[in-house]
């Protein structure tokens, strides 16, 4: 969907320290977050990052805990890269890209320990809350991963836990209080475009990138990382990407806080 000439143009610009839309390499596009977007979800958020739009919805249900974590609720993150969002996406079961997307976001949330899974236990060994976060990209304008990670954590912060009936089944539409979260993990991905380290690419820049590194962080800590792409990073590039991502996450976290009312 991107021509060879466009790719070469973007790469040449990158080598010269420039971007087509004039942004600095570490400059994000405008970030907007709208929580409560999907009324039938227990929590949801629509994230707009330039032309990119990602919706995340959280559904809560009551289920049986895993045998080895019998006192903990269950968090599941799922993503689809469906064809509505991009001519390059296909129908069918999630492929590597969607699976990796879901798993990177899952680890960012899980490893940050922002959710107290023990607080989601209703009856040990028997009944716990199952928290399903579904990521639904609406328009792939580039950098879906960061938008999706922000949408996921914003949607979790939007969650109202339903009340339970006498059979310990959730009563749809009720609210027994918000899901308590301790942190706001933010993924920031650095892309390598012709050797330059670039953040928040549009889809043409992303298609021109040879490697990427996602760094998810909370206040004070990195909590998850994932390198991807067909090429590699030098050690100093990795370190630089981690530092910049951490700093950038601090900025973006403020936008999330405002959106979720913290």
């Amino acid at each position, binding site marked *: 969907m991107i021509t060879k000439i466009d790719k070469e143009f973007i790469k040449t610009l990158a080598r010269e320290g420039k971007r087509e839309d004039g942004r600095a390499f570490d400059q994000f596009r405008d970030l907007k977050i709208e929580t409560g*977007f*999907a*009324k*039938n*979800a227990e929590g*949801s958020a*629509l994230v*707009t990052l*330039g*032309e*990119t*739009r990602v*919706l995340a*919805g*959280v*559904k809560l*249900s009551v289920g049986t805990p895993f045998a080895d974590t019998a006192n903990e609720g269950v968090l599941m993150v*799922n993503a*689809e890269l*469906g*064809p*509505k*969002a*991009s*001519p390059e996406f296909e*129908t069918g*079961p*999630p492929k590597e890209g969607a699976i990796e997307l879901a798993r990177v976001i899952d680890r960012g949330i899980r490893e940050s320990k922002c959710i107290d899974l023990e607080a989601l236990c209703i009856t040990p060994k028997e009944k716990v809350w199952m928290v*399903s976060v*579904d990521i*639904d990209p*609406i*328009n*792939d*304008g580039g950098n879906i991963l960061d938008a999706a990670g922000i949408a996921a954590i914003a949607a979790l912060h939007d969650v109202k836990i339903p009340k339970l009936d006498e059979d310990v089944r959730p009563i*749809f539409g009720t609210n027994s209080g918000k899901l308590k979260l301790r942190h706001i993990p933010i993924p920031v991905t650095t892309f390598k475009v012709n050797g330059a380290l670039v953040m928040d690419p549009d*889809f043409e820049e992303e298609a021109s990138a040879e490697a990427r590194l996602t760094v998810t962080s909370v206040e004070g800590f990195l909590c998850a990382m994932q390198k991807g792409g067909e090429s590699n990073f030098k050690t100093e590039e990795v370190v630089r990407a981690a530092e910049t991502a951490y700093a950038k996450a601090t900025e973006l976290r403020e936008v999330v806080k405002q959106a979720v009312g913290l």
Partner: protein
Amino acid sequence: MSEEHKKIIVGDRRPDGRALDEMRPITAKAGVISRANGSAHFAMGSTVAIAAAYGPRELHPKHLQDPVRAYLKYVYAMAPFSTQDRVKPGPSRRSTEISEVSRQAFNSVIFLEEFPKAGIEVFVEILQANASTRCAGINAASIALADAGVPMTDLVSSCAAGKVDGKIILDVAGEEDTEGEVDMPIAYIPRKDEIALLQMDGLLTLDEFKEALELAKKGCMQIHEKQVAALKERYVRVASEIAKKGPVRESAEEVA
């Protein structure tokens, strides 16, 4: 349904205050997904659908290619968080059937013969479900296909009539859907006066059926107007942007 159940329609007033032949508020917008060739957002009350349309484009896998006409693909899906209970991703028997009857509703209005071997594809997703999701999907798909410039004889419009507490009503929703007696979605092509989709569940006499069919057709006419308006608004928007900055790639539009 037991006969002694509490009436939900009291004196021709419906639970949400509508008259028997009144639709829920409709919003429709074209051009909401910049990466798709055409797209639309369509809401009937709290039922919300988006659609992305592509084509004519090269079709994969190749064995689907038809040497004499374009292959029309229509995929209806529900977002996992669109309903009370999470919807498992991937096709279900229900979604497969809805995709198929919806595709058939568009089959006759698109000039498929003009694009042999090509694929024309529409992807519909229900973001929020409160009855008539297949109708909202078809209405969004119509606008998206037109927005993509796919040549069509007419827009397809869709809504449901139903029967609740013995009364024939337009655009069943909420309690009416869970407690009502009949749901009957149709798709209608006004210019040809043709029924392109018709499903009915529940007990109707022949006379009630005729009444419901006429009511649903009237609803479709109202929707048709909204679809046309959305497309007009879209053309004005594009034209004014081109006037402003020349024919550049257009910026993203609000989804809702």
